């Protein structure tokens, strides 16, 4: 492992993050709040970044350095993001700050805050802005704005972009990252405008647009989106949440007028079918509670979009919904958004390939000599990819179970331990019971909070970039 070069890359990304903190600083100054938490953080991050980025290093950069850099950068980013929270003095322990920051960058949206509205606007802005940065990816941004990292940058973005197969939109990585971020910015701004028109204050529009864009779920209201009680706002957020959980390659195909290929996408159709199907099931299940078709649809649709995209906004406390609805939502938490989106979870394309290889396995038992390939979007999926997806899903469950085991030390119920681990790994936000949409994570022990923070990063980076940091093999010289 070329640790010096890895640290060098970390340093350069840190410098970029220091620059990103200038935006909440300006917001804080604009509202006449105390800018010191941001000033301290910027100076500290800049200093560390400068020291690391002047490290002389050999240009030996391969996949292992790429994965390790990504893992390290995300863990450090989680800590760095916690600095403004820590300096602000509104948080009790360092573990709380790290939890909140990781939850932000990984677009989980789980919070330890009991009274969000009491916090200054600058801090809340930073909290939501981390969603926006983490959604498309810190490193995708780095490859877009740092002219030449001087290394094979696709190793970095490859490890950060969710999905089973990594593909570029255009031949150059830097160009691909720029296109992704421009589409991301345009979509975010259109949401801000829509929300403003629907009657949300401008500041709140930005906060919720960031929460939607990164599929995070931090709100500046205690009752989340439910606080506005507006049908229009609910629908705007539902639709945009769906838009951000689609593969961004779809938008590129639309821009380049390749409509046929968009229609050919199996993942897109599967995702939309799941959304429609679960909305229908929830509507039937919760209709007796509301007895109003429109209201039932409004709540069911919003909750389904919010959970499958792994955002975690809530318009109502669905803890009192029937158990069947809970279970549908938990299944959606596993499933997650599309590959190449800003959402988390296992990802629809993986679920689809998994289902298809199960069908193939059954077929093989019936016809032992049959040869059948798994296809996605009309193209053959390589056996290697199928294999890696199976391993990924296995690891996913293993991580959730291990985390739930540690969290259960706190003595909460099976449901709480399990769903809090699940919601963290899938980057959703709310779980069930104590950690439900109306609850929060403040009562957990510091150990649980740190484990959950790590789980969020593991889930965001799709497991392996973090596991490689804990593997002895990757640190050996040869």
């Amino acid at each position, binding site marked *: 492992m070329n640790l010096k070069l890895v640290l060098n890359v970390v340093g350069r990304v840190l410098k970029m993050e220091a620059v990103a903190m200038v935006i909440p600083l300006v917001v804080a100054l604009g509202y006449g709040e105390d800018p010191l938490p941001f000033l301290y953080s910027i100076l500290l991050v800049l200093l560390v970044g400068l020291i690391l980025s002047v490290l002389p290093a050999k240009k030996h950069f391969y*996949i292992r350095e790429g994965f390790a850099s990504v893992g390290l950068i995300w863990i450090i980013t989680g800590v760095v993001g916690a600095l403004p929270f820590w300096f602000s003095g509104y948080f009790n322990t360092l573990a709380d700050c790290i939890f909140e920051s990781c939850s932000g960058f990984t677009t989980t949206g789980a919070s330890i805050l009991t009274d969000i509205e009491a916090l200054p606007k600058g801090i809340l802005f930073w909290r939501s802005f981390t969603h926006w940065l983490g959604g498309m990816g810190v490193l995708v941004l780095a490859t877009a704005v740092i002219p030449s990292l001087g290394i*094979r*940058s*696709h*190793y970095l973005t490859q490890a950060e972009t969710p999905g089973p197969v990594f*593909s*570029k939109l*255009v*031949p*150059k*990585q830097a*160009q691909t990252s720029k296109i992704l971020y421009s589409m991301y910015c345009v979509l975010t701004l259109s949401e801000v405008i829509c929300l403003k028109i629907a009657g949300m204050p401008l500041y709140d529009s930005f906060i919720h647009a960031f929460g939607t864009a990164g599929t995070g779920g931090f709100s500046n209201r205690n009752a989340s989106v439910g606080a506005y009680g507006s049908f229009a706002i609910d629908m705007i957020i539902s639709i945009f949440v769906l838009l951000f959980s689609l593969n961004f390659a779809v938008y590129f195909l639309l821009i380049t007028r390749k409509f046929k290929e968009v229609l050919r996408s199996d993942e897109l159709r599967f995702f939309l079918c799941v959304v429609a199907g679960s909305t229908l099931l929830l509507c039937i299940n919760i209709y007796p509670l509301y007895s109003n078709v429109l209201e039932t649809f409004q709540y069911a649709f919003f909750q389904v979009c919010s959970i499958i995209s792994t955002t975690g906004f809530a318009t109502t406390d669905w803890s009192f919904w029937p158990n069947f609805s809970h279970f549908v939502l938990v299944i959606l938490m596993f499933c997650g958004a599309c590959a190449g989106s800003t959402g988390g979870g296992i990802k629809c394309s993986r679920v689809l390939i998994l289902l298809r290889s199960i069908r193939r396995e059954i077929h093989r038992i019936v016809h032992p000599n049959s040869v059948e390939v798994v296809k996605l979007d009309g193209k053959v999926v*390589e056996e290697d990819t199928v294999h890696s997806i199976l391993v990924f899903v296995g690891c996913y469950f293993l991580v959730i179970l291990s985390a739930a085991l540690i969290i259960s030390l706190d003595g909460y119920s099976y449901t709480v331990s399990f769903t809090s681990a699940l919601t963290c790994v899938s980057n959703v936000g709310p779980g069930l019971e104590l950690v439900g949409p109306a609850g929060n994570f403040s009562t957990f022990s510091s150990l649980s909070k740190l484990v959950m923070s790590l789980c969020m990063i593991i889930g965001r980076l799709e497991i392996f970039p973090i596991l490689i940091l804990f593997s002895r093999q990757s640190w050996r010289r040869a």
Partner: protein
Amino acid sequence: MKIIIVGNGKVGFSLAEQLVKEKHDITVVDVREDSLRRACDLLDIMVVRGNGVSADTLREAGADHSDLLVAATNSDEVNMVCCLIAKNLGTSYTIARIRNPEYTATLSELRRNLKIDMVINPESATAVEISRLLRFPAAANIETFCRGKVELIGFRLQQGDFMVGKPLHTLSNQIKKLPLLFCALERSGEVSIPNGSTVPQAGDKLYLIGRPDSLDQFFRILGRYTPKINQVLIIGGGKISGYLAHMLSKMGMRLKIVEQNASRCRSLSERFPKSTVICGDGTDQELLEAENLSACDAFVALTDRDEDNLIISLYATQKGLPKVITKCNRQNYAGIARSVGLDSVVSPKFITASNILRLVRGMQNSQGSVMNSLHRIADGAAEAMEFTANSSTHHLGISLKDLRLKPGILIAVIVRNQEIIIPEGSSSLQSNDNVIIISRNSGILDLNDIYQEEKAVPGTVGGAQ
């Protein structure tokens, strides 16, 4: 430029590597998943898996709006069809690698009907290169400009040459009078542009540019003049040998070809009845001795294996043959070969990639001054380019000593109305001049690229003499 390369083999990969360095958008198409993965890991390119003859695959690679498509799969037929389809989809320029000699006769017809803009044949290009080296044995390599009016020659200095250890400005008047220019010096892998105070040492490779007859005279003075080559021994009877034998026998050289495969020997003998074709193992020293190796004027090693070529070439050098040429495809062997004294190493892959690169550079600056030719010298560490100056060129008519050129750039020769001028401080560029530039930096696309932007150190003008 948007460039698609179909076929990620030896040539395809090294071409992609070079073009990525020059900041082009490269998409590579191949059927083999593992080779694509390797390319994707090593280079900043996009890859598309699929067959190059499928319109869907080509469209996915962006053939409908790309500037250039290079078809370099191992099948001539696939390459031809691929070019045709790409052209119909909307690619502006297509290049096909066609190597089967059977197609040579009908090539122009094929090109017209299949809308192929350029055909590259690595074997034939390599044979052309070798035949040029054999025509001028004193040079380790040789490039021509302005339709043969100017030649650039690289040669290695040996212990005992009168130039060794003396600064260039002390050379005798006899040499100074010749219209020649020492334009580059390669010492242990580093290339520099020499000036009057440069002291050549034994083992250095010097590049000399000028008229062919003055170069001839220079080598006579140096005592390196080798009379015309008459007897050539070629080891290996593959495609390159076929093309080479055809060219050399036209030049009146006597050939001896050693090839292991009996049926190939028969077909060679059928095509070149005047040559001696020997069926046997060319790497066998006994056989070489029996064929009286040391009586030959030149030795060309063209077997399939780089290692065999290097070893038998070393053997031939040891036997004191005046000219030994080695084919070596692997770029990393070339340095090793040079260090053991093999100077004339040719690589089909490198030659092909250079030819395409020249074309790409030429296409890029269709507005500015026209690049007529580009040669990469010293294993690509420096480039020699020929431009035609036109009205778009800056600083016309200003004497060179007042111009500020980028460091590492040399204006080597100006050809004006058939007259060859070795520039001095008082010379100036004029419209319609052909100008030959030596550059240590890659990426000079236009004659205007050689000028230094405001306020900088003056470049080397005029050079050695």
